[in-house]
Structure formats: structure tokens, C-alpha cells
């Protein structure tokens, strides 16, 4: 594990935390999505994202569950590297669907940054993750194909798009050591370098967006948390905190 440099660890954690929280957000729809098939699908896709986070965590600390838990759950809030998009609570289904699509459109590009990584393990994980992401995007697109053709649903989707877009821009905020990781060859580009491709995908899917009108979020190199982060983490720790010594 000692082949992971401090800079590499920082960019990996940015992805770990996004995947972890995105997975948690999706799985919270189990039982409450608009219909059974969708709550199962969201939870299933969420479990894939949790799997990606777990693979990256193993790359950082090995396979010991206690070490993984310590890193995955018990860092100070300022030590997390998640973005606001995955921290925010979105009680509306249409907002959640938009987050799913916008996140996955960027996630594919983010894994591609790892494909030629100087850390071979990251390159290997990216192959596995990309093979799964194809189906996440198919899920989001298939739903949108249907919903965007219905007037009422179309209007709700577009309203959600404009609500979620400023949050989605936080995905492209790089972790503090990103520049060093780039020099080391851990990643082949910065997160912000993906923005143009991602915006093209958004325009292609929903029609041209007036990007100048989208409120730019305040970026913190992923060191600051959204207000919804603390309650989200509390929900995640509800069971684990009952007894941290238990082996599940």
C-alpha cells in the first residue's frame, strides 16, 4: 500500500467520499421511491457506488475492515473530500433523478482519469468501475427518455436540472494536492479539465443550457462541508456506533 503518495491519497479520497455518499444517498430511496422497481434500482446502483468506494479504500488501507471503517466513517468533517452535490439531501424524486444522471455523466469521465494511472491498482479498478457505470447511465437515460416526452414531467425535470446544476458544478472542484497527483501521473487530468466534456453531455441530453446564468458555487478544494453533511453522516453511523467492535 505504500506506493500511494500523499497527493495520490488526496485525489483518491475525493473519489472515495463522492462514491460513498452518492451510494448512501441512492440507497436511502429503498422503500420510498415512486415505485418498487425504481427503489430497488436506485438501491442497487447505490450499492455499486459503495463497491467502488470500498475498492478505492482497500487500495488506500488494505483489506482490514476496522481500518476501512476508520477511514471511511471516522474522519473529521474537514478531512472529508466529498463535494456538495453528494452531501445535499434532495427529498424530491425528480431532483434525485437529475443528480443521478449528472453525477454518472461526470463519473465516467472521472474514472477515465485513472485509466492510465501510475498506480496500477487504480487503473485496474477503473476498468471494473467503467464496466458497471455503463448500466447506471443506461438506467438514468432510459427513465429520462420516457419522462422528457411527457409535458408535465418534462417541466419538472427541467426545473430540477436548474436547481441541481449549481450543486453539480462542485464535482469539478479538485482536492488540495490534485496538482501534485497530476505531476506524479496518478491522474491524467484535473477535475476541472472534465467540465467542458460534461457540459456538452448535459447540453446534448437536455438541450443547450445557458451556463453563464448558472450560479457558480463557492469552491473550497473540497475542505468545507454542506449543511446536510452532518445529519447524513449521523444516519450512516447510526448502526455502526451501536458497537464498533462487532463483526457483521
Amino acid at each position, binding site marked *: 500500500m505504500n506506493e500511494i503518495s500523499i497527493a495520490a491519497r488526496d485525489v483518491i479520497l475525493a473519489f472515495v467520499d463522492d462514491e460513498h455518499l452518492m451510494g448512501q444517498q441512492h440507497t436511502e430511496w429503498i422503500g420510498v421511491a415512486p415505485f418498487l422497481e425504481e427503489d430497488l434500482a436506485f438501491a442497487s446502483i447505490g450499492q455499486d457506488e459503495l463497491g467502488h468506494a470500498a475498492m478505492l479504500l482497500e487500495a488506500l488501507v488494505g483489506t482490514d475492515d476496522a481500518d476501512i471503517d476508520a477511514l471511511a466513517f471516522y474522519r473529521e468533517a474537514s478531512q472529508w473530500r466529498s463535494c456538495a452535490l453528494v452531501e445535499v439531501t434532495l427529498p424530491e424524486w425528480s431532483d434525485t433523478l437529475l443528480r443521478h444522471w449528472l453525477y454518472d455523466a461526470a463519473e465516467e469521465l472521472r474514472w477515465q482519469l485513472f485509466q492510465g494511472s501510475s498506480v496500477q491498482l487504480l487503473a485496474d479498478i477503473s476498468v471494473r468501475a467503467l464496466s458497471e457505470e455503463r448500466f447506471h447511465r443506461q438506467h438514468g437515460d432510459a427513465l429520462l*427518455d420516457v419522462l422528457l416526452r411527457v409535458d408535465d414531467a418534462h417541466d419538472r425535470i427541467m426545473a430540477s436540472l436548474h436547481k441541481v446544476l449549481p450543486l453539480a458544478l462542485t464535482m469539478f472542484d479538485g482536492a488540495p494536492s490534485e496538482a501534485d497527483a497530476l505531476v506524479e501521473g496518478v491522474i491524467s487530468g484535473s477535475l476541472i479539465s472534465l467540465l467542458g466534456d460534461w457540459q456538452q453531455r448535459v447540453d446534448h441530453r437536455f438541450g443547450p443550457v445557458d451556463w453563464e446564468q448558472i450560479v457558480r458555487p463557492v469552491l473550497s478544494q473540497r475542505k468545507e462541508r454542506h449543511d446536510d453533511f452532518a445529519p447524513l453522516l449521523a444516519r450512516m453511523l447510526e448502526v455502526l456506533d451501536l458497537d464498533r467492535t462487532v463483526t457483521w
Partner: protein
Amino acid sequence: MAIFEVFLKKDGRDEFRHVGALDAANDELALVSARECYVRRAEGDLLWVVRRDNILSPEREFTAPNADKPHRHHSGEAVAARRKALREMTKAQPDE
């Protein structure tokens, strides 16, 4: 929305087996939902998703008469049991 029936087959010689049903707005969503709802733990290697409307399903009366044709059962036990029952019925009513 339409109802779809889902079948899975493990690789090898096992046949496709019915595993459940789902609601979906179109064929693609049916496939996507089937993947997430029924195959997420690799329960099968091959997947069939069939619109319930496309399944030919006659009324029950169509098959019901075949429930009582023991002569079609190759073991002979059912025929023997029926002959024995008829003999005993005849013995019990000798005057008829």
C-alpha cells in the same frame, strides 16, 4: 406501464426459470429494471424479459379435461388403481 415477466437461466444445462414480474414503461426500462431487481447478485447468466401481453394463456377449461386421463401415465399405476377401484365398486354393488 406494462407488466413484464422475468426469466433467468444459469449457464449450463438448467432451463430458464420464472423469477418474478415487474412494471415498466417500455422495453428498455423493463430490461434495465430486470437487471437491477432480479440479477444484481448474479442470480442468472442469461435473462429473458417477456411482456405478459405476449404470453399466450388460454382459459383454465382448455387444459382442465386432461387432469383425469390416467391412461396417459406410463407408469401404469394410475390405470391399475382405477381398475381396482372399479372392481371394488362392482363387488360392492353385485345386483346392478
